[in-house]
């Protein structure tokens, strides 16, 4: 990698997380905040790491920051500001809410990155598509980003796909799993301990969700450990419009918690907000 551009990292720490009701980077997993964990993983390999912050963020940070250039630039605003900060660098863009992100995953990405391509990333373990939560963008991506944003487009994943990135399989499948709410951290804790175990489940959707899912009832194979993990998997897969906190999970015709373990052959139902009367 002698001819490679200098490596810098941009951590997407998010704004005040609405879902957690608090700063998601400050969420604690195994005794450390998510931000501390991710910094401890990346700074040995990429010492120059910045936190991506909103245009008007007035909080104080212990790490250098890169501020969005405009208010509400969308999910690609951080990368735009990073290339503005240093257009000659290759930028690793990384979400901070990845509790099981590890140095193997980072080393593998840096080792296999192809500096002649615009980007190198991992395949999402569930849908195999390019995953923007951990991607190395080469300087050549900056121009493409300017054009993409000029077209008023904002989707980080579609932008990444438009670059025709090098896509790698994940060495550790859970490394890029989001954990930005307590139920997901619980899910990841179990998965990390017990591993991914396939089970067949039947899911019935009600109300609005029944119109959004491909069918009102489906039987599928999942590796989710809890009902929260299953819902998040299906929410992403079917583009369901409702967040976990507005949906009620039902297991074997009983209301249960999101943290309830998912048994083999589970009969699950997801209930959107009720609207009687």
């Amino acid at each position, binding site marked *: 990698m002698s001819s490679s551009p200098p490596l810098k990292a941009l951590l997407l720490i998010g704004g005040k997380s609405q879902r957690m009701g608090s700063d998601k980077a400050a969420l604690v997993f195994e005794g450390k905040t998510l931000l501390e964990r991710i910094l401890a993983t990346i700074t040995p390999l990429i010492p120059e790491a910045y936190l991506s912050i909103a245009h008007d963020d007035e909080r104080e940070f212990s790490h250098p920051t890169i501020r969005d250039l405009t208010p509400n630039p969308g999910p690609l605003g951080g990368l735009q500001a990073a290339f503005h900060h240093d257009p000659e660098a290759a930028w690793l863009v990384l979400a901070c809410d990845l509790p099981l992100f590890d140095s193997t995953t980072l080393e593998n990405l840096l080792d296999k990155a192809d500096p002649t391509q615009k980007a190198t990333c991992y395949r999402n373990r569930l849908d195999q598509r390019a995953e923007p939560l951990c991607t190395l963008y080469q300087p050549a991506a900056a121009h493409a980003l300017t054009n993409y944003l000029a077209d008023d487009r904002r989707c980080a994943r579609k932008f990444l796909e438009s670059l025709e990135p090098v896509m790698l399989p994940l060495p550790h499948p859970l490394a890029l799993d989001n954990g930005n709410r307590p139920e997901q951290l619980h899910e990841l804790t179990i998965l990390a301990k017990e591993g991914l175990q396939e089970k067949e489940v039947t899911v019935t959707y009600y109300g609005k969700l029944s119109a959004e899912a491909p069918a009102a009832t489906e039987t599928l194979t999942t590796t989710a450990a809890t009902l929260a993990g299953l819902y998040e998997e299906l929410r992403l897969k079917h583009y369901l419009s409702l967040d976990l906190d507005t949906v009620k999970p039902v297991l074997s015709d009983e209301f249960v918690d999101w943290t309830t373990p998912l048994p083999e052959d589970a009969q699950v139902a997801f209930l959107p907000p009720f*609207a009687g009367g």
Partner: protein
Amino acid sequence: MFQITDKAITTSELVSLAESPSAGALVVFEGRVRNHHHGKEVTALDYSSHPTLAQPEGQKLVAETLEKFPDVEKIAATHRTGHLAIGEIAVCIVVTSPHRPAAFAACDYLALQLKNRLPVWKHEHFADGSQDWT
């Protein structure tokens, strides 16, 4: 008494279930399908319910209301599912009590609980051809 039903609701049947010689007050609430929602003209509604949870949840809400309003003598309530035209009754609540205040308050309370806590969903059909889940 609570019942979830896919048949048209007959209010007089609920009245006869709730009335009592010692009740000086009998309050009836009919929730009917109205022809507008958020400024859009509604042509019909479809109500769907969870097949096994709606009935016990409704019974629970009626029991809870009776407990909360000890002066109430009887409650008869029912919620309809299926396709409803404008003016049809979606929910009917009949409450009796010796004096007026308890019956009114309990009826209002139960109406709100059924709206928020009964696993029932509303699919609205609008005059402009659009539809929406609420």
